[in-house]
């Protein structure tokens, strides 16, 4: 029996998805090196990839259904971690955000990256179990509640960027749980009205901080933005991207935007700008195509998922990844505000790589069991 599973596992293991993910990380390591050749971020990222691959393999082999069954436990555990981040002495403050947790042995990590996974699992468990038919209002409220707990804790850090990445998870799950199309239309219309309104109210009441207003203004009118103040990140990022041209700068790393420190956070949030500078339009398009291919593989997996919960897990991951890629690259290309969202698989950071690989591990696990039922 075990031998059969082993054999089937190997046959059904999605090598292409795994290869794509690893390839993107390796490409990212090269860009991290380009961004900060004198620092050790790139070698740490390789170590991170190693750890991530182990976790990935373990998750892929474990039957995802058992994990989904245990989702509430993971979820509670995740919330505890998020709460611990806020405890003075345990949480570490970087750039004004208390988003990191420093624990003995394990070291420093960012719980908000990992808690997405139990959140997705719990959503999948709840919505996967329900019977066919349109969503009830109560069901929507439960979904919103599952999301609200971690998002609320993350907003205390405060890390608006990370908090935002949670919303597409719920959105996708609700969408696929037969929420009525007119509700979706209503939500979009309401969003178009209420987001600017909320922004305006926030500005008027002072709840939205001045730097956040400026970051939005920069996007609306980059030419007249203050290139040394709040517009700095956006302007420098656009210069860096544009400078790459068709095929990148090739060599001459000493005068690169990151080497001269014109580009801020080059190895993390602005890694795509570094990629653009070094590999040009050709490199960037190749990377976007790789993402597109990876997402296609994931969606294909969702279509083959053995059960509803599995399908929801994969599609939530697809939604989360797509949203993060779009927010991050949109920011780098200067048409979305500067919000600290890492680029999946590219940005330096163990937490982000690990959580992404765990997510992909689930996808592979689900795909491997597509014929088990």
């Amino acid at each position, binding site marked *: 029996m075990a031998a059969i599973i082993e054999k089937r596992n190997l046959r059904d293991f999605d090598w292409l998805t795994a290869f794509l993910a690893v390839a993107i990380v390796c490409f990212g390591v090269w860009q991290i090196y380009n961004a900060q050749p004198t620092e050790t971020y790139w070698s740490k990222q390789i170590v991170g990839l190693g750890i991530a691959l182990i976790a990935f393999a373990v998750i892929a082999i474990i039957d995802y259904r058992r994990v989904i069954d245990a989702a509430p436990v993971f979820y509670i555990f995740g919330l505890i971690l998020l709460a611990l981040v806020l405890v003075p002495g345990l949480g570490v403050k970087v750039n004004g955000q208390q988003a990191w947790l420093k624990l003995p042995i394990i070291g420093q990590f960012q719980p908000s990256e990992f808690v997405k996974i139990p959140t997705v699992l719990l959503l999948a468990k709840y919505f996967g179990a329900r019977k*066919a*038919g*349109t969503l009830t209002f109560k069901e929507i409220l439960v979904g919103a509640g599952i999301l609200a707990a971690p998002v609320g804790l993350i907003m205390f850090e405060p890390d608006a960027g990370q908090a935002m990445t949670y919303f597409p998870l719920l959105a*996708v799950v609700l*969408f*696929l*749980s*037969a929420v009525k199309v007119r509700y979706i239309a209503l939500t979009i219309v309401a969003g178009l009205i209420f987001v600017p309104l909320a922004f305006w109210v926030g500005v008027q009441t002072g709840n939205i901080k001045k730097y956040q207003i400026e970051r939005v203004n920069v996007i609306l009118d980059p030419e007249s933005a*203050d290139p*040394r*103040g709040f517009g700095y990140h956006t302007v*420098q990022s*656009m*210069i*860096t*991207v*544009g*400078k*790459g*041209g*068709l095929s990148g700068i090739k060599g001459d790393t*000493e*005068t690169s*935007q990151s080497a*001269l*420190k*014109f580009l801020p956070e080059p190895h993390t949030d602005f890694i795509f700008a570094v990629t*653009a500078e070094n590999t*040009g*339009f050709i490199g*960037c*398009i190749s990377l*976007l195509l790789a*993402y*597109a291919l990876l*997402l*296609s593989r994931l*969606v294909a997996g*969702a*279509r*083959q*998922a*053995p*059960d*509803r919960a*599995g*399908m929801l897990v994969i*599609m939530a991951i*697809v*939604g989360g990844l*797509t949203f993060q*890629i*779009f927010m991050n*690259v*949109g920011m780098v*290309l*200067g*048409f979305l505000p500067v919000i600290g969202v890492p680029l999946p698989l590219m940005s330096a950071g163990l937490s982000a790589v690990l959580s992404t690989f765990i997510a992909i591990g689930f996808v592979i696990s689900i795909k491997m069991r597509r014929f088990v039922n």
Partner: protein
Amino acid sequence: MKLNDQAQNLGIRVGTIQVIAFVLLAILGVRLYYLQVVKGEYYSDKAENQRIRMIPIPAPRGAIFDRNGKLLVDSRPTYNVTLSNEPIKKIDVTDRLEDYSRGLNVDRQYLIERINLIKKQPGFETMVLKENASIQDISWVEAHALEYSELRVELQPQRFYPLGKTLAHVLGYVGEISPKQLEKPEVIEKGFRPGDIIGKGGLEQQYDEHLRGKPGYRKVIVDSRGRVQSEIETVEPQAGQDLVSTIDLDLQLTAEEQLENSTTKRGTIMAIDPNNGEVLAMASAPSFDPNAFVTRIATPEGRREIANYYTNEERPLLNRAIQGRYHPGSTWKIPESIGALQQGAITVAHSNVACGGGITIGNKFTRCMGSHGSPPLSYAITKSCDGYYYRLALKMKIEGLIEMIETFDFDKRSGIDLPNEKISQTPKSWMPSVVKREGKWSDIRTVYASIGQDTVVVTPISMLRAVAPVGVAGRMFVPHLLKEFKAIGAVGEEGDPNYVPAKPSFGFDRPEPKIIEMTPEQNKIMLDGMWGVVNGGGTGAGIKINGFDIAGKTGTAQNSSLNSGGAQDHSWFVSFAPAYKPEIAVIGLIENSGFGGRHAAPAVKAVYETYLAKHHPNLLNGQQIAKK
């Protein structure tokens, strides 16, 4: 799981998410194409502009020496505290003025003016806030490097005038190019930029192009905070050429000392070599300290000092030798006499004209200082007989005087190599307005003009230039201060795009002298008269030097315009020596001091004595022995 089994169009919904994902990625791709392919060049230039900086390396400005190699002007290394333009475009530095003012000990008002200037002229890369920074200033800037990253300390050679007020009018001073100057097309053409140091006034301005040299630069790569990361290339500056002037510092110091010791301490003394036009001394009092404009311009005291220079009624900034205009009084009689001889109003054989103790024009009697009968020309010069010249001028008519004025270039600049020389005013320039106002040119104006009054106001330099030719057979030279510019070597390798060729040594491009036509007999009669002024019991008899005969002419010019407050006459003496083979010509003017023979002549004598001590010490000793 069969998606189609579901009643919720699940397959379509999954497909919708996939399409949305692809559309979002496609949007990113389109934006990438726009930034990298369409506008790649634009951003590439932007990136280059923000990382490449040209840091100018100032060229050492040429020094200025006197004719014997004594240093008159030099540059010394100093540190400037500068304000970078880039950061202050965005930060409001007006809040920091108080701190700058305290930390650097600079006048607050001055800082406000500087900041306003930098805002009006976006061409500034950096602007000097304080020149000649002290160790305390430098350490203050260093200590606040993080707080005030817009402040820097830069090494800059600074102009230094070791002699202070001495020769100030001749040397001029240097300063930052003014916004007004920067608007001139010829200035823009030469590549001047805001903040550049240029000569202002005097030789510094006249020969700025040669003194300034060619600045070099360092082309560097800077990081986002403006710190230099690496150097692309360095182009060394070519130093300015050293200027050797014709000035003899010893004569100059004597001349200035004489003015300083004069009754009014206002006036000018100028000495030239009549054989070639070289200016040996040019003193103007009161004077100013050029260092005030260079080293003290940022301090409150220095700014008051400069303001005083501009508002002071005694006008210390005026170079009286070339910018002051005075009635010449009787000194005017020298060129006038030559004009009369040239025009035939008198001849060598018949030069007598009646004195009459004065003249009556209409019902107004204008008197002579004495009663000289009907003297010959040389005697009229020696005794400075006004009556003689009243009648001589009436004989020449105003047309004759104007012809003389043209002969001696009183209607032109002398052509000296100094900026802002004034042109004398004479009956020639006054004629049109006088005739328009009074209907005609009346005889009384001709009479007044004959003794250098009324419509005659001349610059001391034009008078000296007109009189000096009497001693050198009528050769009238253009006075000049440049003796030689020293050669300077090339910079860089030949064929290099930044190669700056060597500059050769060169002197003053001296035009041929204008010849004042005189027969030897005419010349002699003039010389005899001028010799007699000092050596024949004339109006300048008090300054006779044995063995070194001075030929000269006194002048005592009334100035009706200054009558209020009982302004005294201007005292003139114009001369050369030795009388029959002159080596040096000297003019002296002491404002409002009185009689020419009493004030200007002794001051001029002191200059001759210094000259003798240097060139003919035996003569001076002999005289002193004779005195004993």
